[in-house]
């Protein structure tokens, strides 16, 4: 069997040298991958899946130590000379990375970068390489290949960039394609397209794909075989059917349970009667938000004539693709962005056109959790101070009473009190996001705005985080605007859902009304693009979606 395998990994170990000791990152990994097949490595961040991918072609930093055997087309890679490795990289083994913006060189056109790969490996003239590059660009369905070939990475959208990177990876018809979280940075609809593309190419070129991802939905969509990793150890290995339907290892089971599934959570009753609505906490009426023109960039209208009301005690999910203006709405609702026209009221106070002083008062009623826990906490401030700052600045308490309030808040978000003197970098992503919540809740706000708070978290951490947030919301009864691109997450939390596209509100209503009986085409497309962690069902959905597209 191993004869025909394109990739054969046996007893593969990777250790990292940190502070004078070797820390194992990958332990005794075994894997065989045949042509035309897809093997997925699944696990949380830190499980060693990316390390494996990089280790295959010795792309790890110099503080890594590898042993075991990695054979590509029967040739040993670990002990290979740099010149041999160089020949194999790109030629036989090509990589697709998570973030195409950083993986493509911003100084060169995508055409140049594809040509470069081609000419590095083949004896090819510039004209010939250009023709081949054009072919590749059409192969990955980039619009208008003649033009696209001369574009720089920043002139393309995220999905197009990922296509360009795939074109580059496919330049030499590699036998093995290593895709390291290829769709994590993309919207669901774009993700679906990229996955379709990869599936089509695999069949056309008969390449083997090593897919690395934390998204069980993507795995269900693509993989023939699955390897589940935890802390560097392969905890389970099997066909897609085995893993999804008969998971043996408790960790795999846990992982599958944690994946939010569309339409599976119980109905959440709206906390007020439709006939007797209380006064809204947040009332956005006919709001237009514009980013002013900057130099040669013309003014950009991010949100047009937007209307939304949020009542006490309910969670409203705001969904849309990136660039749809959902974050803009969230930031405007808390006065971080000026409003061009229309009105935003929080508990009856007008935000549009308010002075700094008025805003200061209004903000006591609000809290916000930002998307990126790494950048939303001041890296030079111990987290206790970050949490206590709103209280201190509002003049509610200081010194000893403040200390106590900080401790209470830490208890609330289930963090140990001892963490208050730690710096943000000493915490994990999930813990940092808890700190974010604690800070947002410090002033016991009437309205909490959560801007994609889980998009940077792993599934298991996300599940715990969502549990915590629902628990807190049920206890404290604040209203919440939950902004997310992930319909499955919104499904778990929200009472009502609003869908945005290109700055417009396209549909709004009850959670079930939106998810089960969407009226708008865009909403329907969004829902059908969400991958479901079940291979059989995902196949049906995929066919349905392709039919919808036609």
């Amino acid at each position, binding site marked *: 069997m191993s004869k025909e395998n394109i990739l054969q990994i046996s007893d593969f170990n990777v250790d990292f040298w940190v502070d004078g000791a070797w820390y194992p990152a990958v332990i005794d990994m075994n894997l065989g991958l045949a042509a035309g097949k897809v093997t997925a490595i699944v696990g949380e961040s830190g*499980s060693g899946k*990316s390390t494996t991918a990089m280790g295959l072609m010795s792309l790890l930093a110099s503080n890594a130590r590898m042993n075991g055997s990695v054979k590509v087309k029967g040739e040993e890679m670990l*002990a290979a000379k740099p010149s041999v*490795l160089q020949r194999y990289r790109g030629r036989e083994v090509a990589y697709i990375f998570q973030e195409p913006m950083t993986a493509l060189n911003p100084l060169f056109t995508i055409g140049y970068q594809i040509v470069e790969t081609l000419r590095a490996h083949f004896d090819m003239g510039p004209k010939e390489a250009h023709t081949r590059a054009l072919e590749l660009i059409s192969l990955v369905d980039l619009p208008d290949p003649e033009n696209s070939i001369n574009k720089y990475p920043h002139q393309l959208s995220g999905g197009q960039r990922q296509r360009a990177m795939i074109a580059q990876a496919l330049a030499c018809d590699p036998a093995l394609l290593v895709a390291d979280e290829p769709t994590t940075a993309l919207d669901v609809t774009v993700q679906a397209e990229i996955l379709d593309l990869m599936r089509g190419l695999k069949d056309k070129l008969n390449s083997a794909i090593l897919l690395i991802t934390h998204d069980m939905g993507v795995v269900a969509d693509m993989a023939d075989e699955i390897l589940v990793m935890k802390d560097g150890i392969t905890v389970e290995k099997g066909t897609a059917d085995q893993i999804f339907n008969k998971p043996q290892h408790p960790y795999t089971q846990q992982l599958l349970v944690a994946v939010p599934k569309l339409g599976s959570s119980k109905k959440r009753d709206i906390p007020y009667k439709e006939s007797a609505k209380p006064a809204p906490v947040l009332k956005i009426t006919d709001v237009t938000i514009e980013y002013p023109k900057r130099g040669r960039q013309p003014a950009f209208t991010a949100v047009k004539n937007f209307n939304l009301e949020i009542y006490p005690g309910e969670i409203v999910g705001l969904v849309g693709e990136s660039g749809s203006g959902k974050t803009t709405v969230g930031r405007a609702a808390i006065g971080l962005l000026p409003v061009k026209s229309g009105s935003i009221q929080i508990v009856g106070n007008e935000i549009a056109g308010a002075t700094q002083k008025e805003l200061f008062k209004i903000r006591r009623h609000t809290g916000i959790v930002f*998307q990126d826990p790494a950048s939303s*906490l001041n890296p030079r401030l111990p987290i206790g*101070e970050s949490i206590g700052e709103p209280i201190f600045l509002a003049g509610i308490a200081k010194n000893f009473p403040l200390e106590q309030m900080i401790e209470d808040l830490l208890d609330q978000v289930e963090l140990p009190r001892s963490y208050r003197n730690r710096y943000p970098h000493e915490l994990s992503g999930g813990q940092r996001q808890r700190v974010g919540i604690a800070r947002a809740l410090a002033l016991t706000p009437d309205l909490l705005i959560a801007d994609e708070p889980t998009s940077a978290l792993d599934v298991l951490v996300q599940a715990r985080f969502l549990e915590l947030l629902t628990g807190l919301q049920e206890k404290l009864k604040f209203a919440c605007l939950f902004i997310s691109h992930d319909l499955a997450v919104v499904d778990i939390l929200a009472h009502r859902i609003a869908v945005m596209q290109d700055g417009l509100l396209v549909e709004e209503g009850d959670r079930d009304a939106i998810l089960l009986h969407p009226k708008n085409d865009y909403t329907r497309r969004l829902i059908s693009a969400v991958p479901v962690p079940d291979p059989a069902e995902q196949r049906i959905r995929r066919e349905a979606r392709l039919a919808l597209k036609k």
Partner: protein
Amino acid sequence: MKIFGKKEPLTGEILAGGESAIANKETEGLSQGQIVRRRFFRHRAAVIALVMISSIVVFVFTALDTKIGPIRIPGWWRWSVEDIPELRYEDCPGGTVGCPTLSIRPGAEFGLGTHPFGQDDIGRDYFALVMNGARRSLMIMFVIGAVSGFIGVVVGSISGFYGGAVDAVLMRLVDFLQTVPTIIIAAVIGKAAGKVGPLYLALFLGLLGWTGLARLVRAQFLSLREMEFVDAARVAGASNIRIAFKHILPNAVGQIIVIITLIMAGAILTETALSYLGFGVVAPDVSLGLLISQFESAFTTRPWLFWWPGFFIISIALCVNFIGDGLRDAFDPRQRRRITKKDRLQAKVQTKAGV
């Protein structure tokens, strides 16, 4: 990815070991200032440097008489810069004059003698001269560091934080100042400062030296003010001043301190250069730079004339650098550079195990 995962328990270990002092004080909430102070005092080299530079300052400033207006505080050293005792001939190697009487060789008896650092051409006590020079140099260094540091940080912060028209005006001022040839202007002022004293020279050099720092601080502010934690602080109700100085500035402190220490080290060199050219500190006043330049022709015959000024220049500059290091590390919670995915991509390819 794996590295991050491995980092977490590691941080725990580091906490349990080196930072147990902080980790154990769980009940006590510490402010940023307290934590920074503790971290600084754990940085051994920085603390040693701090102790050393303090002792040097005390040693140097008490050695000679100090005049503050009409009051005269006597120093503990027997000679002053004005005294011209007899030149010593005895025991000097190779027929030279004024050799040091300090004896610290092992085996021999320790003794200061009359002129432990030796004497200059006309017999003035070299110890007194070096003390006086170190005094001048230290003063010039600190004044330049403080003046440039203060102006640079304030101008850079304002420029970067507010941007727009304010930024444009301030940066054109910086452009203008950078076109001014410092050494020539300083030479002109230095000529006049010979009469008004080195303090004015230092103030003046400080007024010219802040431009690089201002640019750096501005750049830091421009990128830091876009971070989400600034928005978070604003939502929490922080004022502009608080955001600029409590939230953004500490994040830029590392670079600021490095630049200020460089400015201070550079200040000693500028002063030396000016004195060498005859414009900075002028005789009969002395500075360390002036001492070295005065005796450049005597290097082969009377090397001790270089040892002592050189020793003080090096010790002072080293101490300043170590203190700068310590401060930077104390402000930076991530003392160790993280290895990111991008780093790994860029890193050298290694096929064999080992480091």
